[in-house]
């Protein structure tokens, strides 16, 4: 089996029968509850999500500005002093620790804190959508390829090979740059170049093989098990076997993959946006904020530190939580 991408842990190899004393889910929950680190990092990720969801409230009630509002020639009062948001030589103000420009401004005089939260919304939204796309496509492909084998497996596996042949970041950049100007027009489906669905689609498609491959392997193993034979003997059709026998046995694997893919999707989105192939200007994302900030470092280091730390918090949170879930769901762990 091809190894999973960097940062992703292997899924549980097989589902063990439930030990006496509770269902597998109940046991998993007990294990999860015992892991304080898992809960703490899950909480950290949840906190980041909550903060980002509150972005409009923060912008309206506290910062009194939107994420794309420029304040280049304006001034702000800090501790009785009147400071320029952007100096005449183009240096933005640093953190004021007050309601306006709490985390400073960027080169366009935009409130970094507001953009950070809105950027987080965009990053998480893209990450979540991408994960959804990845999981839907990967489950579909993995299950069909593993269950039907033969020609179906051959065609689908070669398709995965094609995607897998490209490093994710390069494939993402290629797709992102190609679609960044004109958007996507498939006749029925039209996506504007500024739509968040575009980076979500790109990131989602890029990661499909990394989930579909292990799932296919697991389906290949499961389809030889007695309970599948029993279902066939009872005269169940393919769809029923897939829906009622196979998928339930894949659930824990899928559940484990979700946080891991989410972390990877957020990271890839940030990378693509940093390179100009993800979320498009002037919409913020943590990746675009890093790209905008890097040219002003070290003079305005906050422009890099702030989105960078937020990205680390989100990815670390969801990754450690995902690891904990994997351990909890894997009886051997």
């Amino acid at each position, binding site marked *: 089996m091809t190894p999973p991408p960097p940062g992703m842990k292997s899924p549980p190899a097989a589902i063990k029968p439930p030990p006496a004393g509770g269902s597998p889910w109940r046991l998993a929950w007990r294990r999860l509850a015992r892991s304080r680190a898992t809960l703490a990092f899950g909480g950290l990720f949840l906190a980041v999500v909550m903060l980002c969801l509150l972005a409009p409230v923060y912008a309206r009630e506290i910062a009194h500005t939107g994420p794309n509002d420029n304040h280049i020639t304006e001034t702000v009062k800090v501790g009785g002093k009147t400071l320029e948001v952007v100096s005449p030589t183009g240096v933005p103000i640093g953190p004021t620790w007050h309601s306006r420009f709490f985390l400073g401004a960027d080169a366009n005089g935009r409130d970094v804190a507001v953009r950070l939260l809105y950027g987080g919304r965009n990053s998480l939204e893209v990450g979540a959508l991408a994960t959804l796309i990845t999981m839907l496509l990967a489950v579909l492909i993995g299950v069909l390829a593993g269950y039907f084998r033969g020609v179906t497996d051959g065609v689908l596996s070669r398709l995965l090979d094609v995607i897998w042949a490209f490093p994710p970041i390069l494939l993402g950049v290629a797709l992102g*740059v190609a679609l960044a100007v004109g958007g996507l027009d498939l006749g029925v489906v039209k996506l504007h170049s500024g739509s968040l669905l575009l980076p979500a689609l790109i990131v989602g498609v890029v990661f499909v093989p990394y989930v579909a491959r292990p799932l296919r392997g697991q389906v290949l193993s499961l389809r030889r098990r007695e309970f599948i034979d029993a279902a066939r003997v009872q005269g169940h059709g393919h769809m029923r076997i897939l829906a009622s026998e196979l998928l339930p046995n894949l659930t824990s694997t899928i559940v484990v993959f979700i946080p891991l893919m989410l972390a990877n999707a957020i990271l890839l989105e940030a990378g693509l946006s940093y390179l100009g192939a993800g979320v498009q200007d002037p919409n913020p994302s943590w990746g675009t904020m890093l790209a905008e900030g890097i040219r002003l470092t070290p003079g305005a280091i906050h422009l890099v530190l702030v989105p960078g730390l937020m990205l680390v918090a989100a990815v670390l949170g969801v990754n450690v939580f995902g690891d904990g879930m994997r351990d909890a769901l894997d009886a051997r762990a």
Partner: protein
Amino acid sequence: MIKRSRSSGWLSPFLAIVLAALLVAVFSACGSSSNSSSSTTNASDAGGVTASSPTLTVLMGTAPDSLDPALGASTQSYEATWLAYTGLVTYTHASGAAGAELIPGLATALPTISADGKTYTFVLRKGLLYSNGQAVKASDFAYAIERAIKLGWGNKQFLTGYIVGAEAFDEGKAHSISGIKANDATGGITVKLTAPFGPFLNVLAFPAAGLVPASTPMKPLPNDPPAGVGPYMITHVVPNQSFDMAGNPHWAAEAIAGIPGGHSNIKVNIVSNNQSAAEQVLNNSADVFDWNDTVPGTLLGQVHAQASSRYAQEPTVSTEFFFLNTQAKPFSSQLAREAVNYALDRRALSRLDGGQLTPACYLLPIGMPGHPNGPCPYGDPSAAPNTTKAKELITQSGMAGTSVDVWSEPHPPHKEYADYYASVLNAIGLKATVKIVAAAQYPATIGNIKNVNPQTGWIAFSQDFPNPVDFYQLLDAESISPTENHNLSQVNDPHIQSELASLSPVPASKLNSVVPRWQALDEYTAQKAYIAVLGYDNVPKFTSERVDFGALVFHPVYGNDWSTLQLK
């Protein structure tokens, strides 16, 4: 010339690290030789650069579009090629207005021009040699012009539009240009024009009109540029990374008056991160910062504190503006165009450019004959904008809510301009989104009416030659083309066309007599709000400590004159 800027900075951190490592290795390995070469400047003063002359490192943010003179049309290309491909005429190697003066290059004198302004007669200097040792012939001039046309030089319209038979040659209807006659025996060269064109001599001063041997292949040679006549020759081209300017071994004997022989070998490195480039020059690990780039505001304080004696801001004859497509909504409405001009806060745009932009409203910049002196029609560009008026105009125009794509490229501050501009358009009632295209593809993308037809976007234009005709090709209806469109606002104004027809033939020597008419035309253009001018660029002249900062000429057409670059 449309100013090209560095490509997207996405690789910049990696490039910076790799480059820094390479520089450390190179300097540590060659430290002794560079020290010894510093003491050889007297030898090079004799006229011409030799292998033992010191080597100075020049940084460029964007690679030249081509180092083949028949193709190169970017500021970065001209900066190098004008020292290696001298034409029949060239510019004085001087700063300021003096640098715009034309002097004989490979011709013995400035040409005689017929009374009708349509025939130019030159005589080629005798005994000239190319950098490869071949003898220069008068007929090589015709070949150089043919080559520039055939290979598609970016400004070939100045040749095909005026030289008799050049258009037919371009279209493949003729094997040579009938309007150019050359006599190798006498050195006589005659150029016939279809109509008088005032700046034609300036056109012949382009490096593209610099002579190359007739044996030069009729194909692009960007990585192995052809032989030329000039103080330098271009060698060791590594695409998108570096190239060298070495002394032309045959130049010293030629010693054309007014063209310095140079003092140093030049190593040009492409560094796409201007922060890194500025730090290298500040720390003396490179010698010259790219004048097309901006020293980041966060470094300016340090530059002023540590390097005030080797940093200056030089005004350039260039204009930055947002084009407004007059053939598409919403800017087909003059009221909408006026609204943009009212709403832009040029002070903000100047800050985005690190304070290097002089707010303005006219297309013709300061330093260009015809620059108007009157007040701007839509408010003082150095004062606060009139957003309220702009909103009213958008409402009156019926364009409120119209979607607008704002085009720009990723290089700072052009992306920041676009973000700011989009926020302004949204604030006055339009619905703007930003489209960023990689720097290398940007001119071709926005110049594509057929497939893209951009509504508005950023562009900068710096003079190709000191004549307002150059700037007005941007609003000349004849410049509109489905691809490679230069008239981005797609202006087709009868008044502009009739004035251009009347003013274009005025020769450079009589340009002063028509300055009031150019001023009136430029005021008319501003009134019609065909473009929204941001301002005029000031650029950094920034060198290392070891460079003689005072001796380095900042040329008004070609920027830093590397032939004047020397050690203290």
